[in-house]
């Protein structure tokens, strides 16, 4: 039995199989609509996340399975003080697979160590969010045809943004990827990531101005400055509007550059960019469902 805690749990070859399956699902969803008949997915969400939870639920329903779960720690036994270890032992008796989101980092790993069903980390604090990374990789692969030889700019909160950290770690395994980190000095990418890039001889640069590097990018990955990651409201207010992607900035980009965003967006991408054919963030949401369908099938060993 396998779990998914980090995008690096799967080798590049295993990911390739997963993405091929996701693309098959995209082409012919009818072929998969009863694959999970009789199976149940438990969505254990200890903190609110409409998007990720609905994506998991849609994925399971598309496969003919059903869904149980909770979407708030207050409506679960956690409010009574139950440990994650105990909760997963109980959930294992009800469901065939579990997607868990928890504000504490490492909680899904603790769950996986006590579980008799596959556990998927659906986000643990500021740590990992592997299915978002799988979504990002599938989007890049599907829209570009492969995952190699491109320059990706990551912009915004690169310090606390877990999706960014996971994506960089995952992309480091592919050839010819160049990184440009665009952030205010306070939200720079952590040292351990840049050290890893240096160790692997991967090209990167850190800049403050988005305009300065716009023309170099094949992908621009925008992120939101998240209020919940700050202990200090003052810092959040000062940094939240540092970058706003708008039509003027898009005019500086290549014709085939693609804009990605893990969503939800607040104001870091102006709505006037939405109609630009290079805006790929809503397509990304669709790929999120396909990749979760492929993941559920893989972990349940139904392929």
């Amino acid at each position, binding site marked *: 039995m396998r779990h998914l805690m980090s995008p690096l749990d799967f080798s590049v070859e295993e990911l390739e199989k997963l993405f091929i399956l996701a693309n098959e699902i995209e082409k012919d969803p009818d072929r998969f609509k009863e694959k999970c008949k009789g199976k149940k997915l438990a969505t254990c969400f200890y903190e609110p996340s409409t998007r990720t939870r609905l994506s998991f639920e849609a994925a399971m329903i598309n496969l003919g399975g059903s869904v149980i779960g909770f979407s708030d720690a207050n409506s679960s036994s956690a409010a009574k003080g139950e*440990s*994650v270890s105990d909760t997963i032992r109980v959930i294992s008796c009800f469901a065939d697979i579990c997607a868990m989101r928890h504000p*504490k980092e*490492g909680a899904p790993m603790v769950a996986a160590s006590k579980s008799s069903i596959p556990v998927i980390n659906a986000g643990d604090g500021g740590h990992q969010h592997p299915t978002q990374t799988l979504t990002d990789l599938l989007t890049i692969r599907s829209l570009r045809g492969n995952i190699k030889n491109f320059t990706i700019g990551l912009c915004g909160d690169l310090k606390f943004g877990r999706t960014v950290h996971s994506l960089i770690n995952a992309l480091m395994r592919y050839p010819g990827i160049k990184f440009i980190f665009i952030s205010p000095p306070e939200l720079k990418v952590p040292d351990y990531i840049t050290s890893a890039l240096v160790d692997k001889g991967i090209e990167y640069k850190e800049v403050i101005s988005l305009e300065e590097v716009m023309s170099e990018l094949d992908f621009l990955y925008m992120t939101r400055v998240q209020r919940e990651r700050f202990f200090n409201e003052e810092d959040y207010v000062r940094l939240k509007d540092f970058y706003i992607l708008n039509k003027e900035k898009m005019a500086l980009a290549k014709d085939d550059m693609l804009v990605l965003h893990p969503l939800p967006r607040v104001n870091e991408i102006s709505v006037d960019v939405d109609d630009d054919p290079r805006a790929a963030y809503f397509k990304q949401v669709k790929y999120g469902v396909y990749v979760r369908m492929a993941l559920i099938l893989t972990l349940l060993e139904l392929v």
Partner: protein
Amino acid sequence: MLNIGKIEEGFVLDHIKAGKSLQIYHHLGLDKMDSTVAIIRNARSNKMGKKDILKVECDIDMLDLDVLAFIDHNITVNVIKDGEIIDKKELQLPKEIKNIIYCKNPRCITSIEQGLPHIFVLSDEEKEIYRCKYCEEKYSEIKELK
């Protein structure tokens, strides 16, 4: 010159950085054992200038080499039996340590989950960096411990 007698069975920890023997005494849990322990501080050393030495008379299986290696893998461990040195152990940084250091990340699951062991994994042997198994927070006080 201070003389301390030979021990029959136990171990001698040599080349401890001067002034750190008491920390090691506590980390090895020697304060909880009723063995005879000699703590020698600031002994003269050709190699180090000054060093500390710990002599402990006890069953030789009672020493946790992983804890010792984590604190300082440059310490020499002499194993004594029948009054003679029968082995000199080389210390290597342990790949994983359990409940020796504790994760200080307030966002880590170890901060709320009852009975969960605090496990740190060696993530960079060269730089001696350990990370929490659960949240991957770096433990950066090893140098201070030494």
